[in-house]
């Protein structure tokens, strides 16, 4: 499913070069439930972005189902992201001008076989926010906003979910609900999960955990 080979990504910080991702080689098979842990600045988020084709590597290869992401054109990469990937971020990522339902429907704008309101409403129901469909993000709590973002990530039925601290600011109950939902999607639809987290308890619930330190990765 996801094949990463000899991946490097450096950043210039003043006169210094920071190795955000340093020679990472990794394989994530279809239906896997994987976590990546590490301290802040260890390169987890950058690696996740490289996997999602959101940023280009300095060297190395990222393949999704055998397709080298960086050999694809920009439009093809965008189509692949739209079709095969769902992103969940650690920050508030809802568009404040849109209602909850419209936010969930956003990725369908760029899809060929468009999903509609009924699909979005079903997902909102699954994350426990069916009654908030017409609300605006500002009317929701942080946890509720996160759940809307999760519903949005699933609207196009992606094969891969790339989640960056998905439970970062959730209370324990909501965190358990979200993880339960992830597990459900993983089991029922064989959705592949790569979750970046500080949360070792969360990592412990995944099937495999990697640790990143100074841009390098190792299986825990």
């Amino acid at each position, binding site marked *: 499913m996801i094949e990463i080979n000899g991946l490097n990504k450096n950043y210039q910080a003043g006169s210094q070069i920071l190795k955000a991702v340093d020679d990472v080689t990794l394989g994530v098979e279809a239906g896997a439930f994987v976590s990546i842990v590490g301290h802040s600045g260890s390169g987890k988020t*950058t690696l996740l*972005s490289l996997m*999602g084709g*959101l*940023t*280009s590597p300095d060297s190395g290869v990222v393949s999704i189902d055998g397709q080298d992401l960086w050999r694809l054109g*920009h*439009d093809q990469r*965008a*189509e692949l*992201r*739209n*079709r095969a990937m769902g*992103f969940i*971020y650690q*920050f508030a*990522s809802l*568009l*404040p*001008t*849109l209602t909850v*339902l*419209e936010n969930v*429907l*956003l*990725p*369908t*704008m*760029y*899809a060929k076989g*468009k999903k*509609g*309101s009924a699909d979005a409403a079903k997902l909102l129901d699954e994350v426990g926010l069916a009654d908030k469909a017409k609300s605006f993000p500002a009317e929701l709590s942080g946890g509720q906003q996160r759940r809307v973002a999760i519903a*949005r990530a699933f609207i*196009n039925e992606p094969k891969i979910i790339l989640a960056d601290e998905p439970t970062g600011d959730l209370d324990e109950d909501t965190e358990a609900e979200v993880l339960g939902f992830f597990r459900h999607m993983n089991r029922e639809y064989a959705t592949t999960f790569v979750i970046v987290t500080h949360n070792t308890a969360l990592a412990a619930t995944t099937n495999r955990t990697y640790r990143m330190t100074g841009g390098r990765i190792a299986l825990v």
Partner: protein
Amino acid sequence: MQMSNFRLALRNLSRRGFRSMALAVALALVVALLFAGAIAMKSISTSITLGSQRLGADLMVVPEGYQDSARATLIAGKPSVFYMPEEILDKVRKVKGVRKATPQLFLKSAEFECCTYVDILLVAFDQESDFTIGSWLKEAIDRPLEDRETIIGRSIPLATGLTMKYFGVPLKVVGDLAETGLEYIDHAAFMTLATAREMIRKSRTMSEKPLEIGEDEISVVLVQLDPAITPERAKVFVEYEVEGVKALTSQDVIGTVKQQLAVLVRTIGGIGLSLWLITVVLIGLVFSMSVNERQREMGLLQAMGAKRRNIFSLVALEAALLSLAGGLLGLGAGGGLLLACREPLRNAFKLPYLWPDTGFVLLAALSAVIAALTSGVLAAAWPAFRISRMEPYQAIRKGE
């Protein structure tokens, strides 16, 4: 419900309601000015052309030294009067290239008991030799004008059948003329030479201010030329062969107005262009700020599958919607401005004014809206392009 760029763009604009409104209003001002300016200029230009066509003469021969008064009378309908001996008519007829020549006599109505409707120009013409007013007469009453009858310009608010009285002579209104925008026609009463002579005679006994015009005097000689000779050439011949006169071509008559028009066009055009440039820069800056604020949003959309062209078109669409709103608002404001300024413009510049045909108004409106749309989209093009080329991760991070 389906999500679309259109819905997203509308929501983004309404989210920044005040800013959107301010930009739309700025653009509306430009559109209003340019639209109203174009219509006003066209109106004046149409009026002058139509008026000079309706005058129907290639040359107008006037007493030397009265060229400005003649222009003022012919363009602004200013009831000035000037006279020359009638024998000039015969001399003009003998000039090379002159096909027809006909006299006209201008009388100025006076503000005394003598006159029903004051401050209009009374134009007497010779029906036998006339080649200008005859066609209007045919349109208006389809028969020759009798003595003591008049047809009046559209600006004189009198109904057909009523009788006016000037210098003791009753003048029955038998018809009116279509509006030309030329005050000389719109604000004048036309009558026979015999009627005018009667007024002159009677004014000496009936009026507190008698008309000081000799029995054999006329104001102008209108000339129709052979097609083989140009008005400019004929003008030289007339002025050389007939002493004490000046010949005005249509261009001479409308030249002053055209100069005034050119100044107006330059002024309005200059203000419009400056405002337009300022607005384009303003829109560009605002959209630059806007996309900078929304980098994360754009990065997120790219992460969801938006292609570069989707991002570009979202920003461009927002600019287009804003510009369209500004354009339409501007058309409304421009239309209002035109109606409000119609009289002040006419009075301030003493220019004729006719509403242009619907086709031109629609074309001007369409052009103004297209110009507004193009300006808005062009101004937003660079910020839109810039944001669409950013890597999604970079956009998301920069928006943090």
